[in-house]
């Protein structure tokens, strides 16, 4: 049985959005009979993260949380994985990190230390959302423009495609959303999403073995 480990901290507005949108990926994984290790809220801590990886050895890791060039955090900013400390936890695995800047150094370093592939962002992942949708992030059509291309990356991997194919599918969806917003039929207020969406698209990268798949 294939397995996926997902971290879903939820302690501020940004992680609240990622928490709910990552749930859609979990549902897709369950439909495909994946074993899902869901480290949600307080469970997104270093002890559970490293313990579950060592015990189950998941094929795919989907990290949601804040990040920096050298680290990715879980609940309340606890560092889960960082350069020169424990990036070997990602060895022999495919990782997608929906977190700021972690592809810059951590991604490179994890690949050097044996990760099959690391897909993430070299700069801040920025998204626009609606003020009144914080209790219903899934119904936020503005956030959807950003988080659907992100989710598509993981669901493409779950379906057995390669890292490169998943990356390209996500890029295509970012591009599709950009073009849709740039048409004259698109309302002006929606067009203000374009620069941020473009930023995310150009800073998303696929490192390591492009042919790696589950």
């Amino acid at each position: 049985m294939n397995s996926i480990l997902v971290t879903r901290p939820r302690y501020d507005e940004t992680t609240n959005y990622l928490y709910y949108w990552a749930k859609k990926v979990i549902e897709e994984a369950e439909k495909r009979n994946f074993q899902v290790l869901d480290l949600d809220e307080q469970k997104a801590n270093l002890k559970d993260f490293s313990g579950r990886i060592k015990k189950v050895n998941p094929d795919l890791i989907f990290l949601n949380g804040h990040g920096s060039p050298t680290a990715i955090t879980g609940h309340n900013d606890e560092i889960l994985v960082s350069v020169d400390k424990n990036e070997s936890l990602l060895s022999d695995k495919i990782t997608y990190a929906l977190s700021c800047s972690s592809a810059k150094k951590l991604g490179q370093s994890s690949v050097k230390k044996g990760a099959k592939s690391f897909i993430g962002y070299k700069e801040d992942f920025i998204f626009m959302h609606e003020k009144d949708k914080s209790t219903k992030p899934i119904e936020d059509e503005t956030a959807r423009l950003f988080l659907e291309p992100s989710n598509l990356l993981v669901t493409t991997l779950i379906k057995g495609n390669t890292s490169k194919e998943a990356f390209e599918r996500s890029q295509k969806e970012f591009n599709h959303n950009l073009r849709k917003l740039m048409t004259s039929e698109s309302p002006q207020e929606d067009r203000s999403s374009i620069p941020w969406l473009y930023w995310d698209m150009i800073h998303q990268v696929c490192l390591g073995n492009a042919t790696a798949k589950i």
Partner: protein
Amino acid sequence: MPIQKDSQDEEIKQLVIERLKTIPPDKKISIGGEGDFTVEELIARVKKNDEIGQKIVEVQMKFLQSLKTGALLNE
């Protein structure tokens, strides 16, 4: 020369502020661990020229440059 550069920076900041004003007031921008910002807060950061303000300018200018070079349409 420095005076000219300062004036260019001010023009860029003003351009970015005008662009930010087109964001509807019912939206917020999440910039990772830095937090979530309203339009007014984004504009204040650009005026202040702090790290977030500079990031916002970078995002907007990257997009405008992509239009100029055609990079966006070629993606």
